[in-house]
């Protein structure tokens, strides 16, 4: 590998993907903060936060605004997928069964079993491809979450409209589902997802690839050996190599990353406090 190649990095995420993820982070944390103030209204933190947010009404507007942002992000992503299908795969079938597919496939089952074996020292680290099974899980969790939280959220946003069709208690049910699904989503993202991507010791304290979109070739080679191998075999690796970002950009990314991480951890601590110590 020559000097130039050594400096070049492997690009894993498109610009749109990265922007969407940033929008996702911002809207997710905003929704979590504004929503949880209502869910955990019995904690002193909620009272302070609610006032910082300008009151429950203001928090409600923020919540709805970012709900729209998040759904828009989601829809943009769906459109992007459709465009990608058109551009790269022609048919849905080709896209779904491609090695880079987000859909769970046989390799994911093998990788999952292989990973568990690796965890307990009964095997080598599996040769992960473009997407690992836990990444696919996180990905589809968002689909599920958007559907569940979105639909119940609309019910809570327009109860007068919804009760024109459904009985009044669906508002109560929507409240429970919206709130508990939110708890699941925030709890999962701020613990499991954070660990899987940022906190596991080899990535600690964070992996900025989702913001920069690029990672060093060495890391990439180790992390995703199957994909690397395939790219090399097909001779397409060069297409994915890009110049690294200047340090100032990395710095900004890290500040943003830290902010998001801190917010996430803060929310987790708050949830733990509210659920265990202040629950009533």
């Amino acid at each position, binding site marked *: 590998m020559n000097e130039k190649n050594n400096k070049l990095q492997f690009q894993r995420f498109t610009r749109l993907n990265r922007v969407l993820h940033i929008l996702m982070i911002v809207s997710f944390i905003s929704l979590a903060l504004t929503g949880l103030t209502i869910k955990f209204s019995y904690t002193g933190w909620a009272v302070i936060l609610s006032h910082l947010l300008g009151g429950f009404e203001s928090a409600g507007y923020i919540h709805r605004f970012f709900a729209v942002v998040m759904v828009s992000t989601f829809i943009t992503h769906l459109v992007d997928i459709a465009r990608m299908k058109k551009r790269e795969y022609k048919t849905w079938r080709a896209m779904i069964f491609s090695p880079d597919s987000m859909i769970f496939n046989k390799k994911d089952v093998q990788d999952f079993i292989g990973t568990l074996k690796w965890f307990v020292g009964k095997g080598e680290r599996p040769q992960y491809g473009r997407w690992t099974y836990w990444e696919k899980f996180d990905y589809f969790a968002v689909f599920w979450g958007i559907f569940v939280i979105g639909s119940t959220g609309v019910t809570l946003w327009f109860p007068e409209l919804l009760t024109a069709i459904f009985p009044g*208690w669906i508002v109560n049910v929507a409240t429970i589902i919206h709130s508990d699904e939110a708890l*699941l989503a925030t709890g999962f993202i701020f613990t499991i997802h954070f660990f899987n991507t940022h906190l596991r*010791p080899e990535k600690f304290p964070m992996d900025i690839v989702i913001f920069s979109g690029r990672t060093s070739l060495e890391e990439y080679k180790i992390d995703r050996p199957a994909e690397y191998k395939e790219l090399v075999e097909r001779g397409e690796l060069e297409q994915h190599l890009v110049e690294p970002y200047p340090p100032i950009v990395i710095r900004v990314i890290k500040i943003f990353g830290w902010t998001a991480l801190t917010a996430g951890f803060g929310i987790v601590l708050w949830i733990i406090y509210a659920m265990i110590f202040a629950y009533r």
Partner: protein
Amino acid sequence: MSTYRHIFLFVSLLLVFPAALSAQDNSDCLACHEDKTLTKKVGGKEISVFVDQSKLALSVHAANKCIDCHVDLKDSDFPHKEHVDRATCTNCHQSENKDYAESLHGRASARDDKLAPRCQTCHGSHEIVPVKSPKSAVAPLQIPYVCGSCHHEGSPVQVQRHIPQANILENYTESIHGEALLKKGLVVAPTCISCHAAHKILPHTDPRSSIARNNIAGTCTKCHAAIETVHRKIIRGALWEKAPHVLPVCVDCHQPHKIRNVYYEQGMADKDCLRCHGNRDAKAANGRSMYVDYDELQGSMHSKVACSQCHTQVNPSFLRPCEAITSHVDCTICHAEVGDQYRTSIHGQLFAKNDPNAPMCTECHGTHNVLGHKNPKSPTFAINVPFLCGRCHHEGKKAAVRYTGTEHNIISKYTESIHGKGLMKSGMTITATCADCHTAHHELPHSDTASSVNPKNISSTCGQCHFGIEEQFNKSVHSPLVTRTDKELPTCNDCHTAHSIQRTDQDQFKLSIMNTCGRCHTEIAKTYFDTYHGKVSQLGYTKTAKCYDCHGAHDILPPSDPRSHLSYQNIVQTCKKCHSGANRQFAGYFTHATHHDPNKYPWLYWSFLGMTALLVGTFFFAGVHTLLWLPRSLQYRKELKKKLSNDV
């Protein structure tokens, strides 16, 4: 007439009527006494001894013989002795004579007081006509003149004898009694003798006298029989006659002789009292100042009340009239109703037990400086009442330290309350003060069923000012008139507090109402906090439905009642207060939903259970995955480092 001629007449009479010696008919006497010129000399003064037979014949005594009255001449020879005793009335008028003998007049006569009147002085002699005859010398219309003949101003009796009243006749003439008699000819109007008696006239200092302090009421009520009904504020029942020493008697207000239907200058003049008490150095034996600031008294509500009307025991027959005083001023002689209230109040009860802390009238109202409650300088003026009551009821003061209930710091709490701010900061004198709720004179502990602040009565107490609210409340489920229960029902102060009452449009009140209702409605308040309404309230915002927004405040009724805000008929309208698009199904939202009750709320219960299972399941698998990953990842990190350093 000379003595000579006198003797001559006697002699000639004897010659003309020898029969007279033994028969002694009136004609015998008249033989001489018919002569208009007949005189006799008494003490150097010649007086007529003519007896007008025409008058005698018309008199009440026409049938009597001369000697029936001139008893000392009975069986006497003619000419009779020169010094003839006075005609006596005693033989017939024994009781009158007895009364007379005991009277001032009689006793004066007995000691040969030249000014003493005798029967004849008033009644006349031979011409006495029946008392009932208008021609009688003692007919009602004549009486003032009869008595006035001696008792008019400047008369020897007025000047030389001790008569405590002045201008008696003039005053009487101008009085309502005199006017009735002398100007209106009302012969039933009281004359002198109506009050003083006809014969048994005694000084007012004599306890037997009809005008003695203890008897005056009886004397006046002879005519003013029903005065007790019109003077009932002053004369409590029969006390006037039973205990005249504690009550002002008629003449304390209606001065003798000057009686009008208005108050006159008083009997025992204030200036008499001020001779000593006007002195700034006046001190009692125990050193207490006895000085009375007369100017202060004149500025008080009692400016028209004389010293003796309160200090009723004063007796002018003492050199120091106040020497007779043995007890405190009793305000209830005039303020009878208030007195009755006070006696049954806790203050009065304590006073009756001789409790040194018990406040008396003067504790709140002052003494000579009594000002009406409408006077801003009065301690009982609305704005001053909290300070007044605070003298004892302020935390740490004598009433507060003996109090064992739950209301503490009442004065400072009141000051911060809506009532206190209205009164003391905004100067709204119509605002409820201590006295408005606890009453001014009938304060009782709230546990007493007669107390204005007893749970039974508190709604009507508050209703005095909060018109309409009481009516609403009385129809609500919280009213004992509606709900029959052994449990304690809430009343005004249970929600609004007693002394810290807040404006209901302020956040603090609005936000505390859930806990207030929750004191009794524990479960339902808890489940409220599980809903959006409750959670927003918990965050400290009021722009969300609170208990009273849906249930009403004072007119709470069970949803089963068609008049309830939450009845089938009204609930959609109630929701629409905030949710303009509310519909029938919208009103089916469970505002007190709990996901812990599978029977009542199965959908909620199963939703929650499902979500919890999903949550626990997801976290369990992901958690296990992560926990397994962590140690492996630590090891892998070392391997990677090694590998990378080898590569380099």
